[in-house]
């Protein structure tokens, strides 16, 4: 017994092209005259007026945003996933945040100081005909419904759009990044809106310390700086303001509580206080003084029973002795004219109100005094 089947048909060329997955079209599309160009020519002839030929983008813009991760990026994700065989050839970069797509479909989110993966027990969420397989405070990623060409995260309040953020979608995956302040409650695949739960938080076992530097010590100055940069990025500091910083001076690393001073090309400086449990945001130093060699307090930060002062004096100085109200001076190094000095705080002290009580003696490499006096 066999089933009386209909005969096979020859596939018409137009049907074949209609069914062709769009990501395989790149080669053939280039041979065609873009419709917009053809339309532009028609208008020119019919109207008799000069027009600018419209630009068309033949390539899928999502493709341009998918790049190859570095070996270091993949290694960080392998550690976070605890899977030495995990591999990835695709990555999308959102500012200082990278999202790697594993060949097995698992996602890995990297920042300067952290790696995020779906925690054990995380259940994918079905959305329309796709699914969310990774979610963090800033990233939603997964498998898009078939044929999806655009994806957007959106926050609505009382049904009205408040914020939205476009993502990247390919036939294999979608990734959408939203700023920290945005509470996404909808995904929009092409024109179709799908509600999603607002992200609260998941157990921390999906997020681990992981650094871009080769140093795995979380208290290496470069890694403290990485945390400060991440925090600043989450606080809406722009990527341009955060690229290219390097540690210059640091105080309190051993105690895991102190102050970091960073520089960018020895032309810009920034501070960042840190403690055992948290780091602050990298904060650019804004100098209003017309005299770049004037001595002044840049930043003050109380940490437990200590007060940390970041100051500036003449760039010729290599060391500076800082004394408080005639007490024993503390000698610290000077770099780019900047220094960090720590004083014990007595109960009742009101340091922030009286930096003027500090006295400085700055010396150059030869030990000669190059500045002696107060600080403003």
């Amino acid at each position: 017994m066999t089933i009386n089947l209909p005969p096979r048909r020859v596939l018409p060329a137009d049907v074949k092209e209609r069914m062709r997955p769009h990501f395989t079209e790149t080669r053939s599309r280039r041979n065609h005259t873009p419709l917009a160009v053809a339309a532009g020519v028609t208008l020119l002839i019919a109207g008799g007026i000069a027009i600018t030929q419209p630009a068309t983008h033949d390539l899928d813009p999502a493709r341009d945003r998918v790049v190859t991760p570095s070996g270091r990026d993949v290694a960080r994700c392998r550690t976070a996933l605890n899977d030495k065989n995990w591999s990835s050839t695709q990555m999308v970069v959102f500012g200082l945040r990278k999202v790697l797509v594993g060949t097995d479909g698992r996602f890995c989110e990297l920042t300067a100081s952290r790696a995020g993966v779906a925690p054990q027990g995380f259940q994918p969420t079905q959305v329309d005909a796709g699914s969310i397989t990774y979610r963090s405070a800033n990233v939603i990623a997964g498998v898009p419904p078939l044929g999806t060409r655009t994806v957007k995260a959106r926050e609505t309040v009382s049904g009205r759009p408040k914020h939205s953020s476009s993502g990247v979608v390919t036939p294999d995956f979608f990734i959408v990044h939203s700023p920290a302040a945005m509470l996404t409650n909808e995904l929009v695949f092409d024109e179709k809106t799908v509600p999603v739960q607002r992200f609260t938080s998941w157990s921390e076992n999906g997020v681990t310390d992981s650094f871009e530097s080769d140093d795995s010590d979380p208290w290496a100055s470069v890694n403290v700086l990485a945390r400060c940069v991440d925090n600043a990025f989450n606080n809406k500091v722009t990527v341009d303001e955060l690229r290219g910083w390097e540690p210059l001076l640091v105080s309190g690393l051993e105690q895991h509580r102190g102050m970091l001073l960073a520089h960018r090309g020895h032309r810009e400086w920034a501070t960042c206080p840190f403690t055992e449990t948290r780091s602050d945001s990298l904060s650019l130093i804004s100098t209003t003084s017309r005299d770049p060699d004037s001595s002044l307090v840049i930043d003050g930060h109380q940490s437990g029973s200590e007060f940390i002062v970041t100051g500036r004096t003449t760039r010729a100085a290599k060391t500076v002795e800082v004394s408080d109200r005639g007490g024993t001076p503390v000698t610290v190094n000077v770099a780019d004219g900047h220094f960090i000095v720590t004083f014990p705080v007595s109960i009742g002290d009101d340091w922030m109100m009286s930096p003027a009580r500090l006295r400085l003696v700055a010396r150059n490499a030869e030990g000669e005094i190059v500045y002696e006096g107060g600080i403003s």
Partner: protein
Amino acid sequence: MRLMRPSWEGAAAVPDDAPSDAELWAQGDEHAFGELYDRYAEAVWNHAYRLTASWSTAEDLTSATFLTAWRRRAGMTLVRDSALPWLFTVAGNLARSEFRRKARFTRLLLRVPHDDVQRDHADDVASSLDHEARLSQVLEAVERLPRAEREAVELVLLGELTAAEAATVLGVAEVSVRSRISRARTRLRKMLADDILEVE
């Protein structure tokens, strides 16, 4: 004259100097996948029709099959260096899930008289409708089969793969496929009218 590899039923003939399916799959890029699409679009499209009894649904199913195959390419199984049997299983899985409702709906429409169809003027249209009606009955019967038998029927009776090929992509022994087909034939014989079946 270029030598041509023996092609699968419904698949485009492939020159002998062309890369094999395994080589294309190993490349893993869009261009290579486009080549595979060119090879197997027609075969998958015809199979999709046999799974849905609707040419319009078959189009959607074929497109979805290749997209899904691309996503799941890491899990692909080659049979005699061909990706086609595995593509058939992808189409079958999709047909049973996302496309089942749509296909059912389309088949339901087929039962409604077509006032705008001029049967007298086009024998081919009548023939086509007849095929679709018969196929719809077959598919409804196939849907009622136990899953293991249904999968085997879709690959062997509808897809016209051999039992050995179906066994490879289903990950079971050939003898299991043969016994599933045998049980399925018995059930189908009871469910379907004689004019839909051909007795060998």
